[in-house]
């Protein structure tokens, strides 16, 4: 289904915490991970415009021009433009790209930019080989976090244009001749005139100015920040899930999307809501059955009522383990509370006690543009 954006009705519908779709237009309601504070709906692969609203500033007095062979240190500031909500921005990595040079990481001694605050850093550029305009591109990996411990990271890019003047300093030698009657007895006294060619205009500092930041989706995938770096595949938050091999009552017989919480709940509990016996129904019930089809209570009880959630974080399908028993992806044990990405073809097992009896295998179905449209969750063994 093509994404058409939110309408007024969607924002009204989102105020109902149980609503996963807009009742008026059927648009999936994807809430920001901090929806309780920012009340923002987000698009399938974009950040929350309120919680992650950075601004890159060139500080007043920064010199943006130099000569060939010189180096420049440019003072910059990262500002968290969101001053209303207590949502900090985490600057996780800062890379610098200069023409003709390798990408280098700018070391930072800080990470958090509180709401409405600014943090300063220096970026060195040069030495410049040729005159003209030199471009220094900055790649900022910034993240926002939720109270549950989820983190969504994005890469933003900003460019600094520096003016490089030709040969800023040359040497002129002035010779004073003291030659006498005998030339060979004469001498030369050399006085060096040092010429500083940096013109006043070039050295003039500029005022404080804002550098426009652009989202760099390609770099996000290439750097492994979002999506699956090896294949370049990305999972949007609107991805659909189809279930195969489940008993009729244990999984929906139609394609579903992430629920109102932004997650698919999986555990031993049933799917029917009962205010007293099952107030928090699961989206998928993970239960064991015998050969005759009868419920294997003993094995089923080894699965927690709400064992794990499937969520989409950083354009990746992830498992969020809620059970104290942990979970297993393929052969890798996950501790309670951990959030791990799931790759195409991975097998998720609730715990070691039910290995071989209850499991889920994920298969991604992506379109030619590398966007996963559907994930088939097959019970293994069925």
């Amino acid at each position, binding site marked *: 289904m093509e994404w058409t954006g939110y309408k007024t009705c969607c924002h009204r519908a989102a105020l109902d915490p149980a609503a996963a779709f807009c009742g008026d237009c059927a648009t999936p309601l994807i809430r920001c991970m901090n929806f309780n504070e920012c009340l923002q709906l987000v698009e399938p692969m974009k950040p929350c415009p309120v919680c992650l609203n950075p601004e890159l500033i060139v500080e007043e007095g920064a010199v943006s021009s130099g000569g060939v062979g010189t180096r420049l240190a440019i003072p910059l500031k990262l500002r968290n433009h969101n001053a209303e909500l207590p949502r900090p921005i985490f600057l996780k990595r800062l890379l610098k790209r200069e023409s003709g040079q390798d990408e280098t990481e700018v070391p930072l001694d800080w990470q958090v930019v509180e709401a409405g605050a600014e943090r300063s850093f220096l970026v060195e550029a040069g030495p410049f080989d040729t005159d003209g305009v030199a471009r220094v591109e900055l790649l900022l990996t910034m993240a926002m976090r939720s109270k549950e411990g989820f983190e969504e990271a994005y890469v933003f890019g900003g460019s600094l244009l520096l003016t490089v003047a030709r040969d800023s300093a*040359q040497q002129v030698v002035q010779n004073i*001749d003291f030659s006498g009657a005998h030339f060979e007895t004469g001498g030369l006294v050399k006085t060096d005139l040092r010429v500083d060619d940096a013109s006043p205009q070039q050295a003039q500092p500029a005022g404080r100015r804002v550098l426009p930041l652009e989202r760099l989706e390609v770099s996000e995938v290439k750097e492994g920040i979002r999506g699956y770096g090896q294949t370049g595949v990305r999972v949007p938050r609107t991805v659909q899930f189809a279930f195969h091999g489940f008993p009729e009552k244990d999984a929906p017989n139609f394609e*579903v999307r992430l629920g109102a919480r932004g997650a698919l709940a999986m555990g031993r509990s049933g799917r029917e809501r009962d205010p007293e016996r099952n107030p928090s129904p699961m989206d998928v019930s993970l239960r064991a059955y015998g050969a005759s089809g009868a419920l294997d209570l003993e094995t089923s009880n080894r699965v927690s009522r709400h064992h794990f959630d499937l969520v989409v974080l950083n354009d990746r399908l992830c498992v969020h383990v809620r059970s104290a028993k942990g979970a297993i992806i393929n052969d890798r044990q996950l501790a309670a509370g951990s959030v791990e990405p799931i790759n195409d073809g991975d097998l998720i097992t609730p715990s070691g006690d039910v290995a071989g009896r209850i499991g889920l295998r994920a298969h991604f179905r992506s379109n030619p543009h590398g966007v996963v449209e559907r994930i088939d969750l097959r019970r293994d063994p069925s």
Partner: protein
Amino acid sequence: MASQNITLSDDAILCEYVQIDDIKGFMQQRLGVGPDLMAMLIRDGEVAHVGHGAHIAVGGFWRSIKDAIAGTHALRLLIADLKPFPATGGVIAVTRDNVPVQGEVTLELQVNPDSPAGVLGFASDNEIVTKDEMFERLAPHINERVLQAVVKKVDALDLRGDVDVQNKVQAEIMTEAERIFGDMGLLVRAVSVTWGFNEEELAEIQKRAEVREQEMLDAKMENFSREIARTAAVTELRLKTDANTEAVKAASESELRQMLLTQELEFVDAKETGARAARMKALQGEIDEMKVEQQAKFDLALGEAKNDLDLKRVQTEIDKLNRETDRLNREQEAALNKLEELTKLEVAAKAREEQMASLKGLQDIDIEGEAARADIVSKSADSEHARDVDRRRQEDDTKLAELRLQREMTPDQLLATQAGLSPEVAAVFAERAKAENQSAAEKMALMERLVESGAKTGEQAKYFFEQFKEGVIGVAAGAGGAEAKEDPATVICERCRTENPASSSFCQSCGAPLRT
């Protein structure tokens, strides 16, 4: 033995060949080259000696014998000036604002004394090389590459006095000159560029000169104006008095003040007095002119009169007419006064009459108003009473009609009509309806059969059937005879069985369309 000192033919020459073969004779000659010159002896095409200065012996009898025995040698001597020399030339460039500028480049060059052989790089065979040629060699290389490139970035007015530009030009030219002359054994010691005045600068200078001249003229004008103002501002005061001049002269300051107060003494503003005098003179002139005019007119009129008698008779007639006119005027004035008094009296009487009429009219209006109010009160009471009577009559009629209707109603209908008034009655009715609802379908089928069989008249059967249907539907809808299983405010999604608000078009849980 005599020694001949060899120097360059001219100071403008940088290097030249000296034909030693020309210096021959019986006696051997010694040639000396000064230390400020480079001497290069070339024997049979090979450089035999290079140094600062030289002392060479050529010719002579023994040399001739030696040449006769061993053969002759071709000898050439190249001498070059080792002293630094200036090479100057003009250049032209265009500034950023497209103003052509001319400059003079001066290079301080010197044949490298450490490698004088490099002179061969530019020494022409059998020709002299002048110092000026050196700049000509360099000029093509610096004009476009250096001067034009640098000057093109500067405006014409900013070119002069810009140390940065000068430094850049000098450094560039030096780099270029070293590149060109380095291989020729020439050292580049210094470079400088002097710019001539360009059009913009000349225009600016001209403009400044004009401005200065204008400022000077303005200053002069200002001085004159001030002088005039000062002269005008100075008021010459004179003392005018009828008193004894000597006494005034001897008076003290306080006495003079006293005299001023008593107006024995007064200041005379010379300027004002002069102006006043001028005005008086002008007025006097005008008065004199008028006098002359009047006199001329009078003379003319007098001339026109025939004689004094005619004048007297005319004057008498005029006087008579004047008197008659005065009498008529007085009579007319008296008549007018009388008429005015009469008019005032009449107006007063008329006004009094109208006032009386107005008062009477007002009294009539008040009386009519009171009568109307009394009438309205009376009518209002009547109509209220009539409405009250009507309302009571209607209530009685309604009650009567209701009682008549109830008399014809069945017990069920009576219960149904009372259900909305009492919850107990509604509960009773609900239980009754529940019990009867199960057999409703059977009853309906039976009634249909009755209609079809025509046991009674068709119209009567239809009436009963419709009555029955309405009764069942009314009981179910109005009194809750059948229990409502769904909340009418919600609708259940058929796909995921989630309750949704009835206003939703799509399920809020799974997005499926809802049946509305």
